């Protein structure tokens, strides 16, 4: 296994491979939109996404600044994501749409599944590979490495993984890209970079 790149984003900043990238001022409430603007992207679907999908999308775009993700065959990249709160933030907004605002909102409902973000990444990048979304109590490097090994042994050559969380207390995404060939101590590197 080889660690190819990481991106950690939250309102505290964006960190590409451990180094801060100036993409938004940390005191902005709407930091994700500012980040999108400063990345000079033209992808209108971004504005419809929920918080989880926005963070996964932005992190992927930031990693692309240093890694050419188009080099992977469209079937060989696996997407493995996890969090603790599932789609909690959007679930509460959807309930609010029919309990308070008068009618259930279809555009919110479609985001009440955490794996929608893998669909957004697949659409953006034309990735037809395998996907899985796990609900975990906390970020667990060993669990991710175990899953990555399963997919490598089944024929995948690269895994784009992410811990992406959105709840009342916390909004963060830690994305990491791992290739099959190589012998690195990824566990320690990831543990350090996640805590950043």
């Amino acid at each position, binding site marked *: 296994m080889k660690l190819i790149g990481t991106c950690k984003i939250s309102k505290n900043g964006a960190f590409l491979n451990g180094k801060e990238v100036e993409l938004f001022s940390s005191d902005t409430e709407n930091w994700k939109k500012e980040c999108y603007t400063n990345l000079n992207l033209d992808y209108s679907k971004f504005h419809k996404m929920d918080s989880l999908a926005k963070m996964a999308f932005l992190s992927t775009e930031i990693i692309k600044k240093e890694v050419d993700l188009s080099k992977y065959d469209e079937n060989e990249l696996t997407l493995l994501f996890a969090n603790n709160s599932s789609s909690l933030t959007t679930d509460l907004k959807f309930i609010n749409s029919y309990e308070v605002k008068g009618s259930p909102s279809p555009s919110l409902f479609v985001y009440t*599944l955490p794996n929608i973000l893998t*669909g957004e990444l697949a659409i953006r990048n034309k990735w037809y590979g395998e996907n899985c979304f796990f609900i975990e109590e906390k970020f667990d490097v060993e669990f991710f490495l175990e899953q990555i090994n399963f997919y490598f042994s089944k024929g995948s050559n690269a895994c784009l993984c992410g811990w992406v969380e959105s709840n009342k207390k916390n909004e963060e995404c830690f994305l990491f890209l791992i290739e099959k060939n190589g012998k690195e101590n990824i566990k320690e590197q990831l543990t350090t970079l996640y805590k950043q």
Partner: protein
Amino acid sequence: MTYGSMITPIGSNSVENFSAMLREESGVDFVENSGFNNENWPLGKIKSLPNKNRYNTLLTEGCKQLTSKHGKEIFDSDETIVIVSSTKANLEDLPNDTFSSTRNILTDELGLKNKIVIISNACISGVIAINTAADYLQSNRYKTAVVIGIDVLSDFVVYGFQSLFALSNEPSKPFDKNRKGICIGEALGAVILTKEKINDDFHVEYLGGSSSNDANHISGPSRTGEGLFRSVNKSLERASVKSNDIDFISAHGTGTNYNDEMESIAFDRLGLIATPLNSLKGYFGHTLGAAGLIEVISTMKMMENNTLLKSVGFEETGTSRPINVLKNNLNKEITTVLKTASGFGGGNASLILKKVQ
């Protein structure tokens, strides 16, 4: 792989369910005031569940069935891993974490030694969970993998599908010309995967499985069946079987126009147009995270009894590709079967099972 437990609107174990299906019983019935505007939507509701605490009650009951059938030792072992498939888990716990009660109930009821793996990947969760269970066994770290799929009815989910205009106002008719949409249902299904046979019950061999994204749309299927086509091809390759070795397909078949049409295109592209298939959504409704499990269990019952169940609600071909949807129950021995699923987020998954001779 063998039977764990199965609780649906038409039965509280796999034998009861299969008998009811042979009688062409459907668990889908009109539920008063279930819609946002007090419509009476047809839903697959388990009538014995209480109005409050539905999820926890169903999960506890499913666990009790597992231990009464298999004993506690198999679950309370450090060589056992449990994998749960659910899209929404316990929505009654909102605004708190909706998945924590799942871990608590499983630990209390099954006395587990290892961490619980939870997969929430929309309607393909169940099939992916079985594929993941097979990965754990192949890694040789575990001797047993238990997969539990569960979702229950809620205003949240019914109002959501209603808002998308995806609900049918009559019991759903997958693949039929006059299909009108989905009927939502609730269920629990569990299977046990092991390296060796664990009892005298019927067992099947898991040959391979995979998933693939359509890379097309988050809430609508690909017009070309791209992800389903790719997933089935990958599963066939991993299972080392050819499409003409497949004797039967347990399809997804939700009863929506776009989904069922997409599946017919994918099966045609795969050379599976003449292969007998059914959708079981007419018996149970679409039970989301439980669907993959209860459909695999029902398919195992068909393999055990050499009887293919008709696709309830299907009368006349309603897809552009004339796939072989079963109109009547059929006595036929089948050896190798394909299970497929497709869902929101562009996900598609499949797996291949073989009868143990």
